[in-house]
């Protein structure tokens, strides 16, 4: 990222202008002409903030995916199944104990342990055979999807939001000005705000671990050159295990989050797998900041698309991916292929 503005003055300018326009759109009261053109500000704000929180959820799911991919060159197409199984398990735990928060550590441990098992028993046996690993993950996702359908059936589940984050939160953003000059502030479901901050905390924590600790150093070195890291005496299998377990656990926790503010149904696994795929394709494979940016772009485009062009919201996502592929095949923040 360093020196981006110096190397690409034009694109830096475009980014600054777009960012400034967005900030103005979010914080300034809209003039009437603009409201006539694209509707009320409240609708737009809800779409934007909904997009940001959806992006936060996508980030939770895609971060593990991109990390696993970057380090092990393993496209884990069972990642969506890990998400869904995490959601179902979280639902069971929350139902049984009545504690929503307890579901997170329990699911993280269980799904992470499952990830350990996968990495140690399955992927280690076919190291370096990327295509075969991918096929195996497809097989696993097919079997898991059917087993989950068996256990939990086809109905949809929703985790009950605990009281302390249920209800609306008032955001310091002006959504409209009343005729008497009073400012109306935007109200938004508190649970979504909580999710956004949770994703922010996890993202920053991941960044800190990756950039400030010894383990993070090993992971980054592994992403850059796995063979050299192994040759310098690091027990790379342990690093693999740790990363796979962490990524799987993160996907499982994503399932709880998704199950709380959306719902859990069969088929959600492929939806989140697709989202993760698109996010890492757009953001760049193996890059955590890339996953964050990709998740934000995809979440925003989906939500804004749903509001302003309901039929074609999926196509926006796809178009963004196609454009990124056409002009920057390695993704926005990806290293050269």
């Amino acid at each position, binding site marked *: 990222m360093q020196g981006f503005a110096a190397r690409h003055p034009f694109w830096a300018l475009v980014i600054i202008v777009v960012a400034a326009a967005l900030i103005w759109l979010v914080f300034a009261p809209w003039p009437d002409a603009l409201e006539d053109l694209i509707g009320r500000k409240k609708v737009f704000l809800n779409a934007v903030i909904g997009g940001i929180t959806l992006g936060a959820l996508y980030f939770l799911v895609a971060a593990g995916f991109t990390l696993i991919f970057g380090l092990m060159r393993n496209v884990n*197409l069972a990642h969506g199944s890990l998400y869904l199984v995490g959601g179902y398990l979280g639902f069971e735990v929350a139902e049984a104990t009545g504690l929503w928060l307890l579901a997170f550590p329990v699911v993280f441990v269980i799904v992470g342990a499952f990830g350990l098992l996968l990495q140690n028993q399955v992927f280690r046996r076919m190291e370096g055979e990327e295509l*075969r690993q991918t096929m195996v993950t497809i097989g696993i996702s097919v079997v898991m999807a059917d087993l989950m359908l068996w256990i939990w059936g086809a109905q949809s589940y929703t985790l009950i939001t605990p009281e302390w984050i249920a209800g609306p939160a008032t955001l310091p953003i002006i959504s409209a000005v009343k005729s008497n000059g009073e400012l109306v502030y935007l109200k938004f479901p508190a649970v979504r705000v909580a999710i956004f901050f949770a994703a922010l905390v996890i993202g920053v924590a991941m960044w800190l671990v990756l950039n400030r600790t010894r383990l993070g150093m090993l992971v980054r070195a592994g992403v850059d050159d796995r063979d050299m890291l192994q040759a310098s005496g690091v027990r790379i299998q342990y690093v693999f295990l740790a990363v796979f377990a962490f990524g799987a656990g993160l996907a499982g926790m994503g399932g709880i989050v998704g199950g709380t503010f959306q719902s859990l149904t069969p088929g959600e696994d492929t939806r989140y797998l697709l989202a993760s795929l698109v996010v890492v394709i757009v953001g760049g494979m193996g890059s955590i900041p890339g996953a964050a940016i990709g998740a934000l772009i995809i979440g925003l485009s989906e939500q804004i698309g749903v509001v302003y062009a309901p039929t074609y919201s999926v196509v926006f996502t796809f178009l963004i991916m196609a454009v990124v592929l056409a002009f920057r095949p390695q993704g926005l923040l990806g290293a050269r292929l």
Partner: protein
Amino acid sequence: MSLAERRVEREPTAIDRIPAPVWALAAILLTMPAYANDFILFQVMGWTFILGTIALSLMFLAGYGGMVSLIQMTVAGLAGYMVALFGNSGIESLSLFLPWYVYIPLAIVIAAIFGTIVGALAVRTEGIYTIMITLAIASAFFYFSRQNYSIFNGYTGFNLVIPPDLFGVDWRQPVAFYYLSGGVALLAYLAVVYVSRSPFGLALQGVRDNPRRMAALGFNVTAHRIAAYTFAAVIAAFGGILLVWQNSQISPGTSGIPAVIDILVIAVVGGIGRPIGPFIGALIYVLLRTFSPDVLTALDLSGERFKTVIGLGFLIIVFWSPDGVLGLWDKWRAARDKAEDPLRRRAK
């Protein structure tokens, strides 16, 4: 020189070189309507030929081009949709009821263009990236076709899509459909074999093995790969048209994610080394899909768990024989030949 000339009476022709098992297979397939019931002909064999044809297009890309594309079922689905849209269907407000000699070529051309565009995007990447990108596009198509009502008629899709009444034959009759799908499958198979031996196919295999060397030799690597996508799209389109006629309906689920994955499963289980592999895989898949509910019910398990059976079978194949059933066959033959090797002094 003269000795050799006298000994060879006649060059063996192409027909002489066809091995006996192929003749036997052809005889069985040709005479099948005489002793198989309608269910076997229409559901089992017809479906096998169709899925085999679509998986064959994936085999062509993966085996000769080294590109595992998950877009083939989507291309087939698009061709099916175009047949319903330009031809006849129960949705009279959308279908255009054009004559068959217009809508069939139109459907194939549109599917080929779509396949080419996707290919042009996908060839910018390699290996597992290709899987990811084609899977993403396939999902996007699925969601788009589910939400779009002006072309794809959304959730419900098209029903009552029937083949044209050519030559006074009702092509949905089991026997007629058996020969129709079998004939298309055979033509697709021969086309793939022919193309794989043509200069284009050989160059494509060269590109698969070493793109840099082929580029250095002056071949346009990207163009070869995109052309392979176009060819595969045409084959998949034929399969898709037959599929919509067999089911007489098409909906977003026809080319949904599970269907896309199934095509990959079929190709991999059969073996992507040779064009016959996808048909073997399709036969195994269809047999499992058709009869495993009965077997599972007989074992006191829920008949709906056939997906688990198929998935586990796929996992086992990928684990122990990455080249599919054909790979197992080759291994068995190699083991037999080795056992007979006199130099190793092993008894039979």
